[in-house]
Structure formats: C-alpha cells, structure tokens
C-alpha cells in the first residue's frame, strides 16, 4: 500500500499540532508496512524524516507552473490566517525563514498548482490513495484526484466551526472545506464531535465519515519542579475557542474557597489583554499568572507543577494537551465539547459554559486528596496506553475500503 499525503507542515518543519499528528499517523502507518509520502508547501531546507518521504513543493520552482491569476482577494480580517501569520512571524525569528505567502488563500492556490506540476512532470512516486490533511490542502487534493483518478481521503483535524469559535465562518474557507468533503471518497474526522459538526455543516451522510481518534507521544517524562501553592493550569492558545475566559471566571469562584491557590495561564493569543483585564476586574489579578508562550520542557514543567489541568474548550476537534498532562500524572478537567473527552474515562468532564460545575470540580480536586490521587493514577495509565498504531490500523482499513470500492 502506497499513500500520498498532502500536508501543510511536517516535523521538524512545523509550527503546530497538525504536523505532529501527521507524523504520528505516518509513523503508525509505516509500522504497518504502508509506504508514506507527504507533500508540504514549503520548508527552510530539504530534510529527512524517519517515517515518510517528504516532498517540499516549492523546491521544484524550476518546473514551469502555469500560474492562473488568482481570483481570490486578500481577506483582511481573516482570523485563522492572522494566527498563522503571527506564528509565521515567530517562526521567522526562530528559523530565519518565510513559511507562508502574502495571504493564506494565495498560498493554498499556489500549492495546488505546484502539486499538479509535480504530478504532470512525473516527480511523484507511485501511489494508491491520496490522503489530504485539512482544508488548506483540499484544492490541491481534489485537483490531483481529478488528474490521477486515484481515490481521495480528506482528514479533518479541525473545522471552520472550531477555528471561528462558532462565531461566523470565513466563507472562502468554508467553501474549500466543503469542496474537499464533497469531492472525497471518504472523510476522516478526529472525533465523533467533529464528525457530527462536519455532517451538519456540509450536509453529508454519516457513512461517509469515519472517526479516527488521534494518539500522542510525550517527549518529556522526567521533569522536576518546586512549588509552594496549589496550582491550577490552563495551557493553550488564548483564543475564544479554547475558553480561557471560562477558566478565569471559575478561578474567581475557586479562590473564595481555596484562597491560596494560583492560576497559571500558559499561552499567547488575541485574548491575552482581555483576559488580564478580566482577572483584574474580578479582583484576582494577583493570583492569576500569565506565562506567555511555553515550549519544550517548559510545557512539561507547567503540567508537572499543576494540581489540575483545565481545558474548557468551547469547541475542540480533539485536544492533545489533556493527554500530555495526564501522562505527567496531572489530573484533568475537560469540556464535554472536546473530541478527546470521547476517549478518556478518568477525567472530569463539564460543559464549557458551566463555570460553577468547573469551579466545584477544581475545588474538589484541590480539597480531596483521594480524588486527586485516583484521577492521577487511573488517568495516567489511560493516557499512556495511547499509541499511533491504533489510529493507523483504522486508516489502513479506510484505504482498503476506498480501493475496494473503486476496483469492485
């Protein structure tokens, strides 16, 4: 079995969770004997990855690309691009490289032309199925499917609903996501939660969408921390869809019962100034600490320091961070509106809007030692049982399904 993946980033050239998930899937597939090739739009330089052959599309710019002038206009208030643009700025500083073009939509179209050019110039290895990750790769994937007549699987790691926090979709992104979902032979969703969103948003039947939950690997397991207070942790981007404001509001209630607790907000994002003001206006600014963006071992230290990790996402397709926290023996509270809650038993689940329930769960974990211990013990065992082979097996099953469907 040979699969051609279309991705947007891939380790070590990545900035977010998408690249890590793609690598994990590639690793699992490789262990099952599947040959994986992945095309990504760009990277600072050619690199090797043990789990997949990586083709960097813009390294082939000597190929003649018939560039059709883009009809898409730059979208000024384009939120998700803005986030990526900020990350790009960060990555530029880190890697001294430009990852993205002037607008994300232009980049998406450019990727399509490059992929097609690679195909027509016979620069792609043989492949049986096309597997495209998230909407940015969908135009390229659909074009490749039409050209090669190979079956297409689109993988939804997050929907426009999640990215917008449910507050109005970007029409262009919506259109491209829809295109991919409609023109594919099978859709993979990272959770049942995401599956039901896709079915609703794009009006497609249940049997076209297959759920493959993510797995994860925690690179840091042995970190030491020193602390003097009970610590409650939020770690994630400070955007509407992660629900950091619910975290601050819960902190207000918790502090009435556990006055010496500290609340750590780790991450950056557009809501940061608002959150700082919110904490101040609630009179708890002294007990809510903002750490900015954490990476590497600092992330592990933050988990380790926490008595409880909270992810109150308004809409979370999957959510790796609770698994990371659990694997470092930190009890977890997650919102029911997160995909990962479908695969975890030993956590406390609340509705994101139920601040009172969230607060009371935090209080209980801080107050009742046995609750903390039991969640920690069982949760850690549960999280550490995750591996990438299980999702890869499901993917392989889907590959065989679409191939069988086409041949028979």
């Amino acid at each position, binding site marked *: 079995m040979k699969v051609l993946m279309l991705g947007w980033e891939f380790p070590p050239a990545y900035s977010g969770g998408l690249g890590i998930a793609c690598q994990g899937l590639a690793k699992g597939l490789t262990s099952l004997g599947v040959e994986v090739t992945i095309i990504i739009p760009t990277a600072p330089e050619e690199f090797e990855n043990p789990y997949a052959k990586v083709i960097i599309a813009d390294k082939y710019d000597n190929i003649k690309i018939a560039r059709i002038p883009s009809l898409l206009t730059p979208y000024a208030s384009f939120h998700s691009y803005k986030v990526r643009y900020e990350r790009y700025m960060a990555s530029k500083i880190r890697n001294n490289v430009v990852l993205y073009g002037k607008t994300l939509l232009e980049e998406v179209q450019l990727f399509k032309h490059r992929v097609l050019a690679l195909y027509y110039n016979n620069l792609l290895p043989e492949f049986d199925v096309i597997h495209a990750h998230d909407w940015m790769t969908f135009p390229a994937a659909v074009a490749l499917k039409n050209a090669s007549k190979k079956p297409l699987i689109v993988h939804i790691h997050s929907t426009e609903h999640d990215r917008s926090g449910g507050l109005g979709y970007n029409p262009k992104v919506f259109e491209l996501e829809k295109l991919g979902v409609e023109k594919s032979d099978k859709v993979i969703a990272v959770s049942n939660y995401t599956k039901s969103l896709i079915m609703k948003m794009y009006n497609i039947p249940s049997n076209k969408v297959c759920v493959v939950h993510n797995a994860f690997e925690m690179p840091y397991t042995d970190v030491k921390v020193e602390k003097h207070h009970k610590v409650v942790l939020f770690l994630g981007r400070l955007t509407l869809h992660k629900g950091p404001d619910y975290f601050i509001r819960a902190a207000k209630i918790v502090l009435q019962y556990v006055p010496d607790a500290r609340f750590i907000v780790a991450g950056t994002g557009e809501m940061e100034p608002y959150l700082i003001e919110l904490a101040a206006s609630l009179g708890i600014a002294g007990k809510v600490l903002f750490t900015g963006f954490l990476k590497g071992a600092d992330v592990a230290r933050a988990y380790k320091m926490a008595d409880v990790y909270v992810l109150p996402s308004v809409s979370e397709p999957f959510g790796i961070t609770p698994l990371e926290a659990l694997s470092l023996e930190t009890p977890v509270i997650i919102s029911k509106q997160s995909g990962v809650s479908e695969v975890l038993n030993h956590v406390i689940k609340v509705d994101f809007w139920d601040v009172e329930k969230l607060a*009371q769960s935090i209080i*209980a974990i801080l107050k*009742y*030692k*046995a*609750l903390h211990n039991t*969640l920690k013990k069982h949760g850690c065992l549960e999280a550490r049982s995750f591996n990438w082979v299980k999702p890869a097996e499901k993917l392989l099953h889907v590959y065989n399904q679409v191939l069988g469907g086409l041949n028979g």
Partner: protein
Amino acid sequence: MVNTVSFVFHAHQPYRLRHYRVFDIGNNHYYFDEEKNKNILHKVRDKCYLPTNQILLDLLKTVKDFKIAFSITGVLLEQFENYAPEVLESFKQLASTGKVEFLAETYYHSLASLYSFNEFQEQVELHKELIKELFHQKPKVFRNTELIYNNHIASQIASMGFKTIMIEGVDRFLGWRSPNYVYKAKNVDVKLLLKNYRLSDDIAFRFGQKSWVGYPLTADKYSDWISSSIGEHVILYMDYETFGEHQWADTGIFEFLKVLPFELKQRSINFATPSQIAKKQPVDELDINQTISWADTERDTSAWTGNDMQRQALQELYAMESAVKACNDETLLKHWRLLQLSDHFYYMCTKWFADGDVHKYFNPYNTPYEGFIAFMNALNDLALRVRKKLLEEIVKQQALNVSKLSKNSSIESFNMQSQTFQNFALQTSLITENPGSLAAEMLSLVKTFSSKRFSSNAKQD
C-alpha cells in the same frame, strides 16, 4: 442428590445523593435526591415488587409446602412507608401466610461490620426491631450487607446471639467442596449457609441473555439442573429486583417463576427456609481468613473499598461516629447513617468503569469521581453540623455546671471543671484535621461564659 431448595430474595433501594455541591456546604442540608428516589421506587414497585409479590402470594396459597425468605433492608422498608405503603401491605400479606421468613441484616445496608462493631450491632438491632414491628417475626438467620463475611464477623454475629449466617459460596475457600451443604464457622458456634452462585446467577444475571448457552432457560430445564446437583440442598439467593426490573417482563421471567415450584415438586424437591436448613449438621468447617462478598468475579470488598477515594470517604465517615453519637440529635444520626449505604461507595468504584458494565448500570452519576465529590461535600456539611451541635451541647453542659457552683467556689475549681471538658473534647477526636482546635475553641467559649458569670457574681457580692 439435592432434595431441598431455599429461595432467598434480597430487596433494597438506595437513598441516592443529589449532586450536592461544594457551595451547598454550610448553606443547606438536602443531601438526598428525594424526587429521584421516589420515582425510582415507584418504577420498581410497578415493574417488580407488586407483580412479583402477587405471583408469590398465589404460589404460597396453591403449592402446599412452598416457602420463601426475604432479606429486606431497613432503608427500603422505610421508603415503602414513605412513598409506597401499598407495597408494605403486600409484604405483610405474604408474611401472614406463615410461610415467609425474614432475615436479619444491617438496617442501613452498610459496611459497618468492617469499620465499627458498635455501629454494626446497633444497626442489626434496629433492623430486628423493624422486622418485629412490621412482620411480627424475630429473625434467626443473619445476612450481612453484600454477603460480606470473614471469621471475625462470625464471632461478632455470635456475640449478638445469632447462630446462623448466610454467605457467598466462594470457590477459593470451598476448594473441591460443594456449597450445597451446611458448614460451620471457624472457632465459633455459627452455622454457615452458602449461596449457590452458579444456579442463582443463572436466573439473576443470565436469564435473558441470548448469547448464553443455557438460553432460553425454562423452569423444566432449570429444575433438572437443581435435582441433578450434588449435595443436600441448593440455596438460591438473588436480588428481588431480578423479577421484572433486572430481567424485564418480556424475558418471560414471571412465567418462569410461576411454574418453577411445580416443576421442582414434580422432581420431589422440597422447599425450606434458611432457618429450617440450618437445623442440619455441618459437614465441615470453613476457615475464611480474608473478607469475601458476592460482588464481581473477585468476590472480595474491592467494589466498595478498592480505591483511595472509597477508603478516604469510609474512613472519614466512620471517624465521626463518637462525635455524631455524642450529639444526641436524631436528625444528625439519621443523616450520618444514610451516608453509610454501601451504594454510595459502589458508585465511586473505578474497577470496571472503563468497561461500562453492571457498575455503570446502577450508577446515578456519570463517573465515580462525581459520586465521590457529592458524597464528600455532604460529609463535610454533616461534619460542620456535628461540630456546631457538639459545641452547643458542651457549652450548655458547662453553663449548667457553672450555675451549680456556689458563689464562693474558687476560680481554681472552675478551671478544673474546664479542664475536664477540654479533655472530653479531645476524646471525641472530631472530624476536623486538628482535633485540638475544637478543644481550644471550647475553652475560649467556656472562659467567656465564666468571666461573665464570675463578674456578675462579683457584682452581687
């Protein structure tokens, strides 16, 4: 070959806690979900208690030597009185046939036998009184909550005057021996009646299970199994709610029950109540040096005491005993005892949680963690109330004593008295993380009071 069968039906419904929140502590004391408890009781009344009682009444009237036994918890009988008196009436009707035996047990379906002999004894006594009052019988055979048993419990039961106890027929203690005989407890004159769990569970768990090799179970086939068993008797012990509630009417469970006594009679099988079976001589002694129960495949107590949450909850609950009892307050005692129901701890079980089986079916909470939180919040509120009450009591006492002191008694004698009370406070070793703080608090109250008293005395002088 077996020639006698004993039917023992165990009926119980918990007093489920509501989602009592941390914010409720100190503000309200409504721990229990009255509405839900009532609704569930009514549902089970309609599906099980009334129809099954009617079938059994008919059988007792028509089948000459048919007999049965019930083990009904005090908390269920109480709920009948409050929410469904007609069910209580129908049980009384059954009792009036003279062919129904009632077993003794803990009133509150509690684990007291593992934590407090005093409380254990009091609850058994309470249950005995209730059975006497309602059914005019003095129970002779004891059955512990969840069939929990070990050698030590046998001695405790003997000291309460019982000579027979019904327990689970656990393979790892029986070895090659059959449960179908009477055994004797280790080192004490108590007879052991063993539940035959295979034949009991064929009805209780497997009756409606289409994947089971024995499906469909007919009274005919089942009676053959019993009559071809090795031993003297078979004790069938199961949840009464098996009939119509765990096994729904559409499985044919009621039809099965209706004809079973006739099929057994045809095979010359007799019926006996547990106390009649206990008249037989024991064939051997069972040395049960670990605690057993009827739960899960382990048949130990891990369903209630297996994880940290359960152990902390139980430990804190029973640590309150002397303080609660020192309060002399009926309501506080009642609430404390209602928190002892083994069900509360069963809901906190994490053993099978991920597999979603029988534990989940009975659990009113989504997760064991929510069960624990609600319980601990309620327990903390109760602790506050007990503490407050105790302080009031002690101050009242002190006031009484001080008022008895004559005008001329010295401040030394007063201080001595204070010391006595301080010691008492320490002995009650309260729920608080720091028992000494209660003593200090009391002392300061006493001092305030006495200074007023002495100053008013001084004025009079």
